[in-house]
């Protein structure tokens, strides 16, 4: 018989197998999830929850698809967090003139409490990447925030009301578009395709009898 434990899901008591994740425990309890459920693999950030173990003063946050239930766990969902994402046109903005500071001036309100980092289910150093953004070090901000899944637990914990995931996203887009090294071979191939130089070789294959194509495929040289 598997071990059963007592949990409190959205304020109601249930007895569930100890091996389940919080998300699975909700389904075991009879919920048909609509909100608060996405990829179920820890990549989409849809399933952030807040919990405490009954009797403890500690409030904790996690992704419910990636976290086991525990005895006495009291779980509430963060189904939608109101982020303050600014609108911008990527063609108009450049990674200069403190652009992130202009769009997200609240990053300078950071009081260094580190609650964002402590809450991050991805283990990112969130406060550090905000610090990079403050200093205009956008590439560093981009790399330090790269594994962000946008669950916005950090924003829910921030006394300075920063929208961290939006800041990281802007830094990454600026990096991808302007700061990372230019790719020459990509531009060349795009130009070749645009001028029609690549079409004939594709159509030559399409025009061959199937047996010849099979021969070509089975004997093609494979790059080491």
């Amino acid at each position, binding site marked *: 018989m598997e071990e059963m434990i007592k949990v409190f899901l959205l304020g109601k008591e249930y007895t569930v197998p100890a091996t389940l994740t919080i998300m699975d425990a909700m389904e075991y309890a009879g919920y048909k999830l609509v909100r608060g459920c996405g990829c179920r693999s820890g990549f989409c950030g849809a399933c952030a929850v807040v919990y405490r173990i009954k009797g403890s003063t500690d409030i904790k946050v996690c992704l419910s698809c990636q976290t086991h239930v525990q005895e006495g766990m009291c779980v509430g969902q963060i189904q939608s967090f109101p982020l303050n994402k600014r609108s911008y046109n990527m063609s108009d903005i450049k990674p200069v003139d403190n652009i992130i500071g202009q769009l997200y001036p609240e990053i300078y309100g950071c009081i260094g409490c580190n609650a964002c980092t402590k809450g991050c289910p991805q283990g990112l150093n969130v406060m550090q990447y905000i610090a990079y953004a403050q200093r205009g070090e956008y590439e560093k901000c981009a790399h330090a925030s790269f*594994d962000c899944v946008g669950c916005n637990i950090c924003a829910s914990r921030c006394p300075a009301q920063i929208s961290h995931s939006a800041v990281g996203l802007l830094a990454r887009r600026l990096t*991808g578009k302007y700061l990372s090294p230019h790719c020459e071979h990509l531009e060349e191939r795009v130009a070749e395709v645009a001028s029609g130089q690549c079409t004939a070789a594709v159509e030559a294959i399409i025009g061959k009898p199937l047996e010849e*194509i099979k021969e070509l495929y089975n004997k093609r040289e494979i790059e080491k």
Partner: protein
Amino acid sequence: MYTSEMLASMKNVEKTRNERLHAAISRMGAEEKDELLQEFHPDYRSSGFQVLKVGPNKGSKVPVELAELLEGHSRLHSDQLDLNQVDYDVDVLIIGGGGAGASAAIEADNGGAKVLLVTKLRMGDANTMMAEGGIQAADKANDSPAQHYLDAFGGGHYSNKPELLEKLVLDGPLAIKWLSDLGVMFDKEQDGTMVTTHGGGTSRKRMHACADYTGAEIMRVLRDEVSNRGIKCIDYAPAIELILDDKGHIGGAVLEDLDSHEHLVVRAKTVIIATGGAGRLHYQGFPTSNHYGATADGLVLGYRIGTELIYADAIQYHPTGVAYPAQIYGALVTEKVRSLGAQLVNSEGQAFMHPLETRDVAAASIIRECTARHKGVPALDGVALWLDTPMIDILSGEGTIAKRLPGMLRMYEKFGIDLRKEPILIYPTLHYQNGGILVDSQAETKVPGLYVAGEAVGGIHGRNRLMGNSLLDIIVFGRIAGRNAAASSAKCELGRLTLAHIDKFEAELKAAGIETTVVAPKLLPTYTHGRQARVEK
């Protein structure tokens, strides 16, 4: 974290690792592959399929679970709604908020159309977000779109629609440039050269990546771009029925608001189905790497108004789904793990196949090893095999896994497994719908004004898709669909809206003697995790 039985078998993997590091493992020949597939690939298990009795594909077989939905009842009656009470009146309606839908939205917006994007869960909740390994494009000097064509055509068993595949490979480099210009952070060398690897079945290293968050990085950039443009999006509002006009042109869709349970009528001059795949139908009881909402809704909607399906019986089982631990059972272990050198190893420590065979061949080979050859390792649900991940850092230097596979490292770390030091247990998982709705090279169906993009399309990949060609197709065909839908909406005068097709389809079901209580689309799966039904006292 591993059981003692697993640890005992793991010793065999460690014992043979050194000699396996540089041993050449030959690839299978064409005949050998064919025999393997026929005997062990789930697509050849006849009990998993059912012949359709109604609709455009009447007489062809599809997975049993899909057949039940295709031959199910509408969630609406034809006279239930007043279609003159229009909630949204737009040029282009996009159903689905994944990579294809978002790409289409951006291009339709560029085309000056009034766009509405509706999605079942949140914008970006889609299989795109979960695509880890990479995106193919022939942009290097030793490569060419023609070479890309040959790889994909052979990998697809020569069944790809040539006009679709031609578009895919020729537009590949441009798709990478488009994403790059939007700010997607591709892995590059210091001099700007793209870092590329092999995928199963590729003859050139053309897999571009953003660590192992490739799809997530693409999706969050596209979502941000859609948001910045102020394109109207409605979350938690799946389409449950398409609307036609009295001339047979597409006319919009009926949405169901999952919060209020109200129906919303969208009048649209063109519609793009971008609803994605079907993993959550759990064909043949397989676990899935797919998103919670992957229930083939678009195939059902399209089928009911007469769009034809192609290769709906060709399902992709990703060779390496998580077989242990339970919390991430069925989740994806990216093919990039094998691209970087990890071998598939059986319970006795033998590397029984080349790690980069195409996905169908690799999956069938794993199933054979576990069933006919009895060389599996007991895991949660049956047996599994080892994927020897510690080889990666040994072959390419310490830190390779941390840099190139941070997502995988983190996913396992949460459950106490360090894949740099210990191999992981895998088994095939339901991953991709190779087939789908038939479109032409302009992404249009035979229903005027109805377009399809992304995983809901069939024919691009034939009967077996190569790694990295799906992230590419959502961009290439998402953009084409968006552009064409916008252009065609400018010339369109809609007639009177109607749901008469529901009655027509009901009559067909009746004539075929189909009695069912199933309503479709399914929208979301139901899970109970072993809970017994409650008994009323």
